[in-house]
């Protein structure tokens, strides 16, 4: 039990008639990067807000290091919210110094930490620039720095790379890894970016409609829904997609057929070998294959497989 730092026990959150989180049970280990993966509105942020003590669950309890979240010492958790939560008229340095002060970090120590954070997140040049004059990426990085200036044991990042360019994302990812590897922090992050969840997380919880669907390592999750390849194809008559799905699903060694935005995803072992048969079956319905590609199974396929393709916003 000692290596469990955070536990959600039968946690439910209702907003009127809407169930945002439904009986969530999970344990997060000390020193891991734990990913919450789910579509928009799946209940990720609500779960996070309950886990850090900002929101009271309707039912159930959250424990941090075996103690109820309401009773833990302030400063155990640092949260980097999804939105930019910054004071527009303070400079980067002033913002970090203020947060450090609020956590009662001794002045000298705080100065050192602020300096290091500004260096690590490439904000040194902008240390004395007011927030309103920073670029989007800089604001994001400062948003993160504000969450960790007091060196919390648990760092919660709610969709941290939202709106970041690839360069900034790389800086962020490296920093998240260093939080775990160099400083031994537990990092909880929510994302809907498969790539991010896949590369960063030691374990991933996939949630949708407030329910935990799967919890495992990225590798296991990918294995779970079948190794092999994915055939993406577009048909000449999309109206017949459903008919084609029904036929292909009955084929041996085809794991699943899912309708995506403008075509079908067929997951099968040895897809290359099976391609002539698949195309043959498709053509029995009187449609042609317009476009076709084969690729390796990704976490996104797992995600779509579990959560479907309907829009959530």
């Amino acid at each position: 039990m000692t290596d469990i730092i955070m536990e959600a026990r039968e946690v439910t959150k209702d907003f009127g008639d809407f169930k945002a989180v439904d009986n969530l049970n999970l344990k997060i280990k000390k020193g891991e990067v734990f990913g919450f993966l789910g579509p928009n509105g799946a209940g990720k942020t609500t779960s996070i807000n309950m886990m850090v003590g900002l929101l009271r669950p309707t039912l159930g309890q959250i424990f941090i290091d075996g103690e109820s979240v309401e009773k833990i010492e302030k400063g155990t958790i640092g949260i980097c919210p999804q939105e930019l939560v910054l004071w527009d008229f303070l400079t980067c340095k002033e913002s970090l110094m203020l947060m450090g002060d609020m956590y009662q970090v001794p002045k000298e120590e705080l100065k050192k930490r602020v300096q290091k954070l500004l260096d690590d997140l490439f904000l040194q040049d902008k240390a004395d620039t007011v927030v309103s004059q920073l670029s989007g990426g800089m604001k994001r990085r400062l948003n993160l720095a504000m969450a960790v200036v007091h060196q919390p044991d648990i760092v919660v990042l709610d969709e941290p790379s939202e709106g970041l360019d690839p360069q900034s994302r790389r800086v962020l990812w490296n920093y998240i890894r260093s939080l775990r590897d160099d400083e031994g922090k537990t990092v909880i992050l929510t994302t809907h970016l498969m790539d991010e969840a896949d590369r960063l997380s030691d374990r991933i919880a996939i949630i949708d409609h407030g329910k935990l669907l799967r919890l495992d390592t990225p590798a296991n999750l990918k294995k779970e829904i079948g190794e092999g390849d994915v055939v993406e194809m577009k048909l000449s008559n999309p109206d017949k997609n459903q008919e084609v799905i029904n036929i292909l699903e009955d084929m041996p060694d085809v794991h699943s057929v899912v309708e995506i935005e403008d075509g079908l995803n067929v997951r099968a072992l040895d897809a290359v070998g099976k391609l002539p048969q698949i195309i043959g079956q498709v053509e029995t319905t009187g449609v042609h294959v317009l476009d076709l590609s084969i690729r390796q199974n990704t976490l996104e396929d797992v995600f779509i497989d579990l959560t479907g393709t309907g829009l959530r916003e």
Partner: protein
Amino acid sequence: MKFISIAKKDFKELIRDRRGLVMILLFPMFFMLVFGFAFGGMGQTNQPHMISVVNYDTGATMPGTGEQVNFGNNLTKILKESTYPDSDVHLFNITITTESEADQKLKTRDVDAELIIPPNFSQSEVALITSTLQQQTTTIQSPNVTSTIIIRGDTGYTGFGVSQGILTGVLEQYQDKLMSEIQNAVTGNPGVVTDTYLQTKVESIPGTGSFTTFDFMAPGMIVFAILLLTTTVAAALTREVEKGTLARLKLSKMTSFDLLFGGLIPWSLIAAAQVIILLTVAVLIGFHWQGGLYTLLLAILVGIIGGVASISLGMIIAAFARNDRQAANLGTLISVPTSFLVGAFFQLPQVVIANLWGQPFQVYDLLPWTHILNALRSTLTFGGGWDTIVYQVGWAVLLTIILFIIGVVLFSKNRLRAEN
């Protein structure tokens, strides 16, 4: 000291948001200008103020000469003859009446004020002259006789406020003039008769001869500006909630006290700045500021108390508003009618609900800003010192503390705990 960090943060935010700051400071200035032009007497002809004089003075005998004098009549004459500076228009239109008649006229507002000269008025003046003479020649003191002139009127009537201000000034000058005449007599001007002691012409003195309705209203504008802080504080606090910065602070070791007390400091400075800026503007457009730097310092102190009351009201609004726009609207919706209730623009009819320590307690007196306004008027318009405002300041402080506690409790309960 986390509240100091919060105070610094709020102060920087206030100062660096130039546009917001200009809005906060300019908006009330605009009102001051409009009211200044409307009521500052610019381009208007001066009108005499209607005064009823009730003279109970029984007269006295002048020591030495044995002459019978009546200083009450003398004072009445002076009031009758006083004119506006550089003008033939009389300051007052005096009618001599009985007390009951005067009271009746006050009620029907046929007169603005009633001046009651007490029976021993001449005796006290004679005693004053005698003791002044004796001070110069012997060490024997003659007994002191005190008499009080009463200025009576409806405090809910602007006309009374103005007349009262002018009367007070004229009476003060009467005393000063009397003293200087006595001094002249002592230093060797024999043959100076009683009549010449008191045949005084009122000259222009600031705040009396040219006292206007605006002089009565300018403190109201300052209170209005202070009340408008409610709106900005409510919006600023709600923005902190809406933007999520409050959630950041909530997770830290910051307490409600740190946040709210820290916030009080910069906003109080704004209130102080409002008093100084608005007073400057008012003086520039014709306000007759009394009492100099001392009254300015008192006014700043009073303004800060009023500012704290407004901040507290802002906290109460921020405890409920959904977003900063709603907070600003709610703030305006509450602070503007409150300005009217406390009499910032004009006095409302009297609604006495109790009598405390011999003073009538009106329903408006439940609002701290009523006392703030009374205190500002006493000190800035009438030049009163600390002793004249201590009663009002006492009430203002008490009511502000109550409001602040309500604000802290509601804001903490609704905004600083985990949400449901």
